[in-house]
């Protein structure tokens, strides 16, 4: 039986309560009659032979690129960069797509007699990966072959000796990337595209760039002009990365891009109810829901966090394509849309969403209030093509505990940003004046380079991600959040979904139309 496409349910009297993620917890909420619930498509069938598909992609590259083995020769310097811990979410079961692709790339390189190979985790301004995270992404064989010899590196966007300035785009954007990647004979990039924004020129132009370069597109203006940044034709973020990527190409950096896509088979068997539609829940699903929701609620937060961050997704590869960056990414995007797109007609007055425990920047960490805002208003809000799911002047209701809690090792600058910047202003256009002092703060630089901290400017980027939504919306309401933390974000706290809807109606008018995004598993709305 082929997988069912995405689905828009209109809530009626017989509709069971709707499942909402609530951080490390789960809730069932009754949405008003007439509300629409957007369900993701069921997982596409995975590639039957991923290894064969990878081999085929390497041998039959897109965009006029020569096969990988033709590009390789003895004595050359080969750099292989790969996506970091922020992808995919949740982390996938072993073997990870990166491992599958890298093993074949290394085999081809070995056959070609290439022995100068360096692996680089394309961190951009993200935190450095831990050894277990690297082992999980690359597999033990690759880790043990490279790491002990210093050949498994993590990109350092603050190492002036290991960055090279390639030039400035027509719009004045500095392009500065990793020196090894820029000066090698071939740069192979191994990607996992989870959402439409991932991959393409962004892999190198952002993943291997310096702060000096990244700040040109990670700012309030670019984000506000990206409508959405999941929609390549209407994303200033995308355009900026494409300008930079083309400059990188014109600078002589030869990139062989390998992109993979995943299906939406997101949760393992014990959490399978999370990707089933509530009216189709079996007795076992209901029992699993009860066990999970009660169990997670009954243990301390750090335990429930640890349990959930231990979940490994049974994602399977749905496509792999290699070759010239733009041609590869065009095919990748088609494959992402094939899995995630759900058509829906018209915008709602109110958009509701249940935010889960994990986002791109808190893998094995705490989802602090800034990341809650970013996940809701940056990611979920932007998962659209055409128009936002909620009308201009509408309201978003997010369900998340939003604790006033931060991981001091991963997010040190977030703490100060939350305490010192958001207490002054929550306007994305205003906060920029503080960015440089955070970006150049020697303590943050030290922690980014030697510890496992996100870059000092990273919380600013998270807030910029929210710029489009904040400009578009009249109200953001958080159900069940820490009231002080929610207010510090500039949002309104509500105790229950009913209260939140009542508060929203004060802004958007009585009897508002409501759309709920039933995710994850991820979906992307095509709003007509």
């Amino acid at each position, binding site marked *: 039986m082929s997988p069912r496409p995405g689905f828009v349910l209109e809530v009626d009297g017989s509709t069971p309560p709707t499942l909402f993620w609530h951080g490390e917890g789960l809730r069932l909420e009754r949405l008003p009659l007439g509300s629409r619930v957007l369900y993701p498509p069921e997982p596409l069938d995975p590639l039957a032979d991923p290894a064969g598909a990878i081999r085929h992609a390497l041998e039959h590259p897109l965009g006029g690129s020569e096969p990988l083995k033709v590009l390789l020769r003895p004595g050359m310097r080969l750099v292989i960069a790969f996506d970091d811990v922020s992808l995919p979410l949740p982390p996938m079961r072993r073997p990870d797509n990166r491992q599958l692709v890298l093993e074949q790339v290394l085999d081809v390189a070995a056959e070609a007699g290439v022995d100068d190979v360096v692996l680089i985790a394309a961190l951009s301004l993200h935190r450095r990966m831990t050894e277990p995270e690297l082992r999980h992404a690359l597999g033990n064989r690759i880790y043990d072959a490279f790491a002990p010899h210093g050949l498994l590196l993590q990109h350092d966007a603050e190492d002036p000796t290991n960055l090279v300035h390639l030039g400035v785009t027509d719009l004045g954007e500095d392009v500065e990337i990793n020196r090894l990647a820029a000066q090698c004979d071939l740069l192979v990039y191994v990607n996992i595209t989870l959402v439409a924004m991932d991959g393409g020129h962004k892999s190198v132009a952002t993943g291997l760039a310096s702060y000096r370069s990244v700040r040109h597109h990670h700012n309030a203006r670019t984000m506000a002009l990206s409508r959405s940044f999941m929609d390549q034709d209407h994303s200033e973020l995308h355009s900026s990365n494409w300008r930079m990527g083309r400059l990188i190409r014109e600078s002589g950096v030869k990139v062989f891009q390998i992109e993979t896509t995943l299906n939406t088979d997101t949760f393992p068997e014990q959490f399978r109810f999370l990707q089933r539609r509530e009216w189709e829940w079996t007795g076992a699903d209901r029992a699993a829901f009860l066990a999970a929701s009660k169990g997670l609620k009954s243990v301390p937060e750090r335990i429930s966090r640890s349990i959930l961050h231990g979940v490994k997704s049974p994602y399977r590869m749905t496509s792999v394509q290699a070759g010239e960056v733009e041609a590869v990414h065009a095919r990748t995007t088609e494959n992402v849309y094939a899995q995630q797109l759900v058509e829906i007609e018209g915008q709602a007055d109110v958009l509701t969403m249940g935010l889960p425990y994990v986002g791109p920047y808190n893998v094995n960490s705490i989802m602090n209030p800034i990341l809650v805002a970013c996940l809701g208003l940056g990611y979920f809000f932007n998962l659209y093509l055409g128009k936002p799911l909620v009308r201009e002047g509408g309201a978003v209701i997010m369900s998340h505990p939003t604790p006033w809690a931060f991981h*001091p090792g991963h997010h*040190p600058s977030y703490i*100060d940003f939350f*305490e*010192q910047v958001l207490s002054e202003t929550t306007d994305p256009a205003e906060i920029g004046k503080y960015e440089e*002092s955070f970006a150049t703060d*020697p*303590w943050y630089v030290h*922690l980014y380079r030697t510890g496992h901290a996100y870059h000092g400017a990273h919380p600013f980027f998270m807030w910029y991600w929210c710029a489009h939504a904040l400009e578009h919306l009249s109200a953001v309401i958080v159900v069940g959040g820490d009231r002080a933390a929610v207010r510090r974000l500039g949002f309104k706290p509500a105790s229950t979904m009913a209260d939140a809807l009542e508060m929203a109606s004060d802004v958007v008018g009585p009897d508002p139309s409501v759309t709920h995004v039933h995710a994850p598993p991820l979906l992307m709305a095509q709003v007509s």
Partner: protein
Amino acid sequence: MKALVFERNLARFAASRVVSSLAGSGKGVSVAPLRLTDLEAPALRGPGWHRVRPRLAGICGSDLATIDGHSSRYFEDLVSFPFVPGHEIVGVIEESFGANGAIASSALAPGARVVIESVIGCIPRGIDPPCSACAQGRSGGCERVGFGHISPGLQIGYCADTGGGWSNAGLVAHETQLHAVPDELSDEEAVMIEPTACAVHAAIRAEVNPGDTVAVLGAGTLGLTTVAALRSLTEPGALFVGAKHPHQRRLAEELGADTAVPPAQLGRAVRRQSRSLAVSERSHQLTGGADVVVDCVGSAESVTEALSIVRPRGRLVLVGMPGNIRIDLAPLWHRELILTGAYAYGTEELADGTRRTFDLAMEVVARCRLGRLVSARYPLDRFEEALAHAGAAGRRGAVKIVFDLRRAPTGRSDPSTGTTRPAIRVASKPALSLPRRRTRVLTTRPRTRKEATP
């Protein structure tokens, strides 16, 4: 006439310590050796002495520490019992013994409204020649605190012979301790002059250079007045305050702090401003830090915090009265810090000459409208409530709690204001004897409860 009298009673002192430790500051008063009694006014000590009847008398953190049983044993020989507490005083001269039987100065004539430098230095003690500190006007540094013709006592409010501010009976003070209050200042502003003088002295002891980063720990009366003094008398580049309660943070910023944050955030705010590193990811110890840290709390936690956020060779000023606390002084040694206390007031050396601390304090009080820090007034017979309120001032949204002694049982009513004015008389000769222990305990509980004056 009524007064609160603190007696030497170790059992009650210990009981108060236990109760206040368990129930909170100010809550141990019911078992403390503090009694509301009938008390005669103290005798004038001789030429230059005046009897002052308090109008408002503040409750200070050091008073609370004494009543809570938490004051340091260091002070045991520097006070004399029984004493009437209260050293933050605005009052009216009721009786004067001028030189040669005449009134010394028209500004200090009976009826004049005055504030009191409570510190009892060499001159009030009749010590001649005075110690070197007093000779320079630095009475706070007096080397003869326990000597002379007056019983030991750091200040009025801790001395058996002088009386104190928590009294309707009045107290005696030497003319060198008195400052006439300008008519423009209200009683509420005037009662803030003594604590502000302590803050002014601390701000000057802090030796802030223009552009320095300064952090103040604590935002009770002392912290807030210190912020006002630092902003008025120095030129910090950035002035941070760690304050527990929202109203304290608001007031701190109104009084000149650039940033007021909860105490747990102060270290991070200072680190950001100073562009310092921390010793490690898990450590609060900064490698750099503020140029000057002023600790207006005086607890082990606050001193430890101060040591962790002051830069190497920086200056740490203890303004809050520390007791017997346990702290790790390794950072003091390793970072070559300058640790200094700031006690009381006297004469300050400024770039353009010397000024009496009280004169500077009056200016700060007027400029910063520090009378607004007076949050509640209580009659003397509601002392238990007053002390409990003072002990929980921060949590209850208050700053300074005072005793309102303007409705004294003696004196005549002023129909224009509804307040009472003192009966004025001039003594003809000094008291010849200085009897001790003239107090008589009447009751341990107030007989009536009246509304606190809002």
